[in-house]
C-alpha cells in the first residue's frame, strides 16, 4: 500500500508537531559558498553549534571562477568574501569543505553523488533549489532557504507539512538521440512550470528505469522547474552499481545490509498518489526552449506556438519580445552567439561524452563562443583521461575548471545583453546568464550540434 514517498517520509518522522506538521530527521546537509557563510555565521551569532558536523558538507561551486589558474579572487564584485567567509565558517564549524584546488571540488549536486554522500533512503537538504537532483538515488533531497538550513544544521531535523504526492509515469521507449533532459522539458511544456506545485514526485515507469544513473539525475534535477517539492526515482541495480565503492557509501557487510534495506524502497503495486501523470516517450523529440520559462519549450523543428494559455497572454508576449522571437517561427536555423555545456543538469561524464561524440573532428562555427564546464573536478579528470578535453579544445571550445560558471549570472562573467545562447542548463529566465542574455535550454547533444552549426540545430 505505501508509495516510495510514504516510505521515505514515514521512516524520517521523529514526532508529530501540533498543527499537522512533522518533525523530519535530516540525514545530510550540503552548503555552498553562495549562502553557506550566511547560514553558518548566523548560526554562530545565535550561539548555536552544528549538531553533527560529520554529516554536513560544503562545496565551492557558485561564486568561484572556472578559469584555469583560478584563486579566491573572482570576477563577481565582492565574490571573494563569499569564498573566504564560507571557508572560515566551515572550518570553525568542523564541516568538510570541498574547496578550490581540492580534487573533490565541484557542483554540490555532482559531488555529493560522486562521493556517495547521498544514498538511497536518505534525506538531504541544501540551500539550493536543484537539490532534487539527488532524489535520483531513491532519496528525499530538496532545496531550502538559509534559515531552514540553519535549522537543519542546529537540530538535525526540519519541521514540515507533508507534501502531496504525485507519480509521473513515463511509458514507451525513448527514440535515439532523445534524452532525459528532453523528457523533463516535454513534461514541463505539457503541464506548465507550476504543474507539479509542491508535490513530492516519483518519476516511474519503464522509460525512467531504462535510464542510466546520470540521466536519472538530469530528470530529477528538473523537478524544481516543475515547482515540485522534490522528485525521486526508486533505487535499483543501476543505482546500487553506480554507488558501490564510493567514499562515503558503506562497504563490506554493511553495504550488503544497506542494499537489502534499499531494495524495499519501491512503491507498492497498490500505492496511491494524490495526482498521476502519464507520458509516452516513444514519440518525443529533442526539445529546446523558446521563452523565459522552462515550460516555453517545443520539439526542435516545431514552430513557437500561438498563445493558448494557461498563464497570461502578456507574459507570453513579454517572453517573445525578450527573446526577440515571434509566434510561428521555427527555432531551427536561428543564429546563436554562444553555446554552453555545463551545470548540475548536464555536466557529468556521460553528458560530456555524448556532446564530444558530436563535436569530434569538427569546428565550432565562426563567431560562436563555445564553453564546456565539467560538473566536478573528478569529471574533469575523467574526461581528460578519455581525451575529451582535446576533442572540445580542438573544435574551438573553452575547457574550464568545474563549477556553476555561467549557468547563472552573479555580477561577474556573463554572455552579455542580447546575446543568444544555447545552454545545457536548467533555467532560461530573463537575465539568468547575463543581463539581457537570451537563453535557450536543451540537451548537451543539441547544444553541441548548434555550436558546430552556428545556429540552433539537431544533433
Amino acid at each position: 500500500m505505501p508509495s516510495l514517498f510514504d516510505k521515505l517520509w514515514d521512516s524520517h518522522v521523529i514526532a508529530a508537531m501540533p498543527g499537522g506538521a512533522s518533525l523530519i530527521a535530516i540525514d545530510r546537509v550540503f552548503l555552498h559558498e553562495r549562502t553557506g557563510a550566511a547560514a553558518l555565521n548566523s548560526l554562530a551569532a545565535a550561539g548555536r553549534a552544528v549538531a553533527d558536523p560529520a554529516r554536513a558538507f560544503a562545496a565551492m561551486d557558485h561564486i568561484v571562477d572556472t578559469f584555469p589558474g583560478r584563486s579566491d579572487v573572482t570576477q563577481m564584485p565582492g565574490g571573494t568574501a563569499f569564498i573566504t567567509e564560507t571557508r572560515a565558517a566551515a572550518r570553525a564549524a568542523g564541516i568538510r569543505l570541498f574547496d578550490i584546488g581540492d580534487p573533490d571540488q565541484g557542483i554540490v549536486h555532482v559531488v555529493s553523488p560522486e562521493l556517495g554522500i547521498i544514498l538511497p533512503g536518505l534525506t538531504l537538504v541544501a540551500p539550493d533549489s536543484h537539490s532534487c537532483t539527488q532524489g535520483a538515488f531513491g532519496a528525499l533531497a530538496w532545496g531550502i532557504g538559509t534559515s531552514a538550513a540553519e535549522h537543519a544544521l542546529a537540530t538535525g531535523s526540519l519541521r514540515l507539512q507533508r507534501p502531496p504526492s504525485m507519480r509521473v509515469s513515463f511509458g514507451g521507449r525513448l527514440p535515439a538521440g532523445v534524452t532525459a533532459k528532453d523528457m523533463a522539458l516535454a513534461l514541463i511544456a505539457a503541464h506548465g512550470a507550476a504543474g507539479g506545485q509542491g508535490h513530492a514526485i516519483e518519476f516511474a515507469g519503464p522509460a525512467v528505469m531504462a535510464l542510466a544513473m546520470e540521466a536519472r539525475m538530469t530528470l530529477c534535477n528538473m523537478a524544481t522547474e516543475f515547482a515540485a517539492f522534490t522528485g525521486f526515482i526508486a533505487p535499483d541495480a543501476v543505482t546500487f552499481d553506480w554507488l558501490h565503492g564510493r567514499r562515503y557509501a558503506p562497504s563490506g557487510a554493511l553495504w550488503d545490509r544497506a542494499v537489502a534495506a534499499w531494495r524495499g524502497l519501491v512503491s507498492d503495486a497498490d500505492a496511491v498518489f494524490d495526482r498521476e501523470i502519464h507520458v509516452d516517450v516513444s514519440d518525443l523529440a529533442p526539445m529546446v526552449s523558446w521563452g523565459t520559462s522552462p515550460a516555453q519549450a517545443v520539439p526542435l523543428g516545431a514552430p513557437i506556438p500561438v498563445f493558448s494559455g494557461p498563464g497570461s497572454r502578456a507574459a507570453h508576449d513579454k517572453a517573445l519580445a525578450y527573446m526577440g522571437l515571434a509566434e510561428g517561427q521555427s527555432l531551427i536555423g536561428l543564429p546563436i552567439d554562444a553555446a554552453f555545456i555545463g551545470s548540475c543538469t548536464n555536466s557529468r561524464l556521460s553528458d560530456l561524452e555524448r556532446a564530444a561524440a558530436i563535436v569530434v573532428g569538427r569546428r565550432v562555427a565562426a563567431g560562436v563562443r563555445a564553453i564546456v564546464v565539467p560538473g566536478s573536478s573528478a569529471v574533469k579528470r575523467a574526461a581528460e583521461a578519455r581525451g575529451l578535453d582535446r576533442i572540445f579544445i580542438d573544435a574551438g571550445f573553452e575547457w574550464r575548471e568545474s563549477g556553476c560558471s555561467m549557468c547563472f549570472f552573479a555580477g561577474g562573467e556573463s554572455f552579455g545583453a542580447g546575446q543568444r545562447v544555447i545552454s545545457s542548463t536548467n533555467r532560461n529566465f530573463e537575465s539568468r546568464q547575463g543581463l539581457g542574455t537570451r537563453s535557450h535550454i536543451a540537451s548537451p547533444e543539441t547544444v553541441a550540434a548548434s555550436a558546430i552549426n552556428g545556429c540552433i540545430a539537431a544533433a
Partner: protein
Amino acid sequence: MSQKFTTLTSLAAPLLEDNIDTDIIIPSREMKTTGKTGLAAGLFAGRRYLGARTPDPDFILNRPGFGAAAIIIAGDNFGCGSSREHAVWALLEYGIRAVIAPGFAPIFAGNAVNNGLLPLVLPRAAIAILAAASGPLHIDLPAQRVSCAGSDFKFAVTAEAKAQLLEGLDPIDLTLQHAASIAVWQADDRQRRPWVYL
C-alpha cells in the same frame, strides 16, 4: 527572530504575472554581501530601475501611492526558481509584509513564514477582485480573512505557519524543545541504518 504578523492594512501593488521568480525579486548580482541585510535596494532591480538606479516610473512600486505598499498581489508560482532567502529578506527590508497569489513555490513559502512574510493563497477570481480594488486591503491573520471595500475572502493557512507568524516564533527554539525525542530517534536509527552515520 522573525517579525510578528497579525493584521495589516495597506494598499496592494498588483504584479499579476505568473512565475515571478526569485531572479526577478532580487537578481543574483544584487546579492553583494554574505549577510542578510542591505538587500532592499536590489528588490526587483531588473524592473524597478532604468539604467543606473533611476526609478522606472512605469514599475508598479514607483507609481504614485504604491511606494508604501506593504502587500503585493501576484500571479501563480510566485517565488519560483532559486532557493535564495534573499528574496524574502529583500521584500521585508523594503517593507512588503504579505504577498497574495494563486500559488507559491514551496521553498519561497517556507522562507516567507520563517521570516514573518505572509504568503497568502487565494483563487484567481478573488485575486482579480482584490487587484481591482482602489483602496487599501485589510488582512486579518487570526480570522484568516482578507478584505477590500465591498469584498471579503477567507483564506487557508496551516496551523503551524499561522502560529509561527502570529507569535514571531523562532522555529529552531521550538524544535530544540524536542531535543530529547531527536536524540532517541537517532539512537534507534543508528541501529536500523548504521551506514547513515559518518
